């Protein structure tokens, strides 16, 4: 069963403010939809304190600079309809600068 992944407006604004390269930004969205949304049970890790929800993280190598890597991490909850996943917050980090 696949899930729709929702991103609240303020989280979207946060991601946009990171000024990611277009290809990386799109890849983040594709990962959320195709990897997480298609099989959340395989990719979510339970979190306990202080956030009672799930975590999802992954890394991407910068296609324009193979020495640079972007890491992303998301707090996720299941929606009340049990057909959606809601992004609560997100974080990113660049290594190899």
């Amino acid at each position, binding site marked *: 069963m696949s899930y*729709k*992944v*929702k*991103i*609240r*407006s*303020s*989280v*979207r604004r*946060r991601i946009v*403010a*990171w000024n990611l390269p277009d290809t990386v930004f*799109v890849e983040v*969205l*594709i990962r*959320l*939809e195709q990897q997480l*949304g298609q099989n959340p049970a395989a990719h979510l*890790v339970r979190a*306990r*304190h*202080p*956030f009672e929800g799930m*975590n999802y*993280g*992954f*890394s991407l190598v910068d296609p324009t600079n193979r020495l640079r890597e972007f*890491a992303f*991490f998301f*707090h996720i909850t299941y*929606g009340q309809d049990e057909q*959606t996943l*809601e992004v*609560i*917050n*997100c*974080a*990113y*980090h660049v*290594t190899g*600068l």
Partner: protein
Amino acid sequence: MSENLLYRIRSGDVQLLEEALRSWTANGNNTELVLELEDAVNLCLGLPDDLRAVWDATWRRLTAYQIDDYQKTGERLLSLFDRAVNVLTQIHQRVEKHERQGPAIRRSGELLAALERLQHMRQQFMDGWLWITPEIIQEAREEYARGEYQTVREILDELQGKNPQLRP
């Protein structure tokens, strides 16, 4: 474990600099003070790279799901950035004061650039860390309840020009 080895080492470096600042007398102009200031400047110039390494190490633990409390870990690292910015600022001021009365301190001209880099990194950390508090969780619930969200599919369609009305 949120306080990794690098964190503890660099926290110790910052603490040594804080203690050194307190130990220097107001009008010290002797050779020992000059040597201490030079050592302090060298240590300060390494702080941006050193704290970058701590930040990288913390993220490696985050993505390996080895951090339990994201908020506390973030607050600790932010506090280390703040202490480092503060100590670098004070040492810069102390060196400037010393140089007005005595000999120049080696590499002191690089301090300001190091301070600016550290301040920039601190802001980047603030903007990029995975903050999570009861307030953020409540804000998220309210935002979803108000319908202030998009699905990832809608955003992808928007980027591909399929739903131009969704563009901000």
